[in-house]
């Protein structure tokens, strides 16, 4: 099913600059219903309080890492089907395997281009 341009998307990263970049790319791709969180814990709180169609998250964050947030999402009955895209500098094979085992929908390695992100989003929502 193609991505709904009106779906609410949560962008999770402890760096404000990265959140701004990801949101900008998503806007250029036609998504305008965007929200932010600074860490996994804050993201989970927001996800439980509202309806989101997609999560884009960093791996290394204070309070709660992205991978732990992903596991919590997949363990929650209400949240488990939300697609999650990891956008991270962790490019080791072990990290990728860990993310796959945790249930990630797709994985983008920093630094990335807008085309790469679009390609990954298209694959998630095809």
């Amino acid at each position, binding site marked *: 099913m193609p991505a709904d341009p009106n779906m609410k998307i949560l962008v999770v990263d402890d*760096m404000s600059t990265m959140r701004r*970049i990801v949101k*900008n*790319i998503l806007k250029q791709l036609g998504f305008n219903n965007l929200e932010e969180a600074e860490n996994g814990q804050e993201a989970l709180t927001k996800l439980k309080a509202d309806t989101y169609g997609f999560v884009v998250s960093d791996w290394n964050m204070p309070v709660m890492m992205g991978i732990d947030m992903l596991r919590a999402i997949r363990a929650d009955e209400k949240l488990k089907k939300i697609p999650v895209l990891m956008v991270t*500098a962790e490019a080791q094979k072990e990290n990728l395997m860990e993310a796959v085992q945790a249930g990630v929908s797709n994985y983008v390695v920093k*630094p990335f281009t*807008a085309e790469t992100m679009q390609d990954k989003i298209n694959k998630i929502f095809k």
Partner: protein
Amino acid sequence: MAQPRVTPKAQEAVDEDDQEEKAPDTKLYEELGELARFIDTTMKTLSEFSAPVNASTQQLPQAQSHLLNLKAQTEQGTHRVMLEVEAIQDNHAQISTMLKDMTQTLQQAKASPALVQQMATLGQMLGQDDKRLLDIMTALSFQDLVAQSVNKLVTILDEVEHKLLQLVVVFGPYQKQAAKPDQGKASEMLKQLEATKNTSMDQDLADEILKQFGFS
């Protein structure tokens, strides 16, 4: 009953036996003494490093401060560039809409095809610039990678500072030939250092430790 008489030779043999029994004790004592002297010399040599160690320890907070400053400045600079890029993107979006409206008007007015084509070309050029603006935005993600590297460096410096301060505390009393109360204080400070091992070093604690051992 009379004691059996001991011949002089036999007495000599007994005396020699007594000396052989003492020799291992004496030898052991001498070796222990040498070991103690060796340890003492080593400790004195190690304590001579406390001044340069202190100098390094005092510079570490400055290094951490510079790194965190670097992270903050690159973050600020990146946000400024993003602000300008976003402003241009917004302008382009408006220009693009206006171009579409003007093209439609010209077509309805049956304007010259060349003119309509020019409008289309303008639209394409805007689109190409929009792509470049997006590339600029994604290139700014370098700042995130810089910030992550800075965070790792700050953590490493923090650990090094902990360890250096432990050395200052351990060898400080020894160098000054401290009395037992000072050695007790050293022990207390080591406990405080240990307590801050997994958190960032409190600058006040670091300064207090250095001050206690005579380093201003």
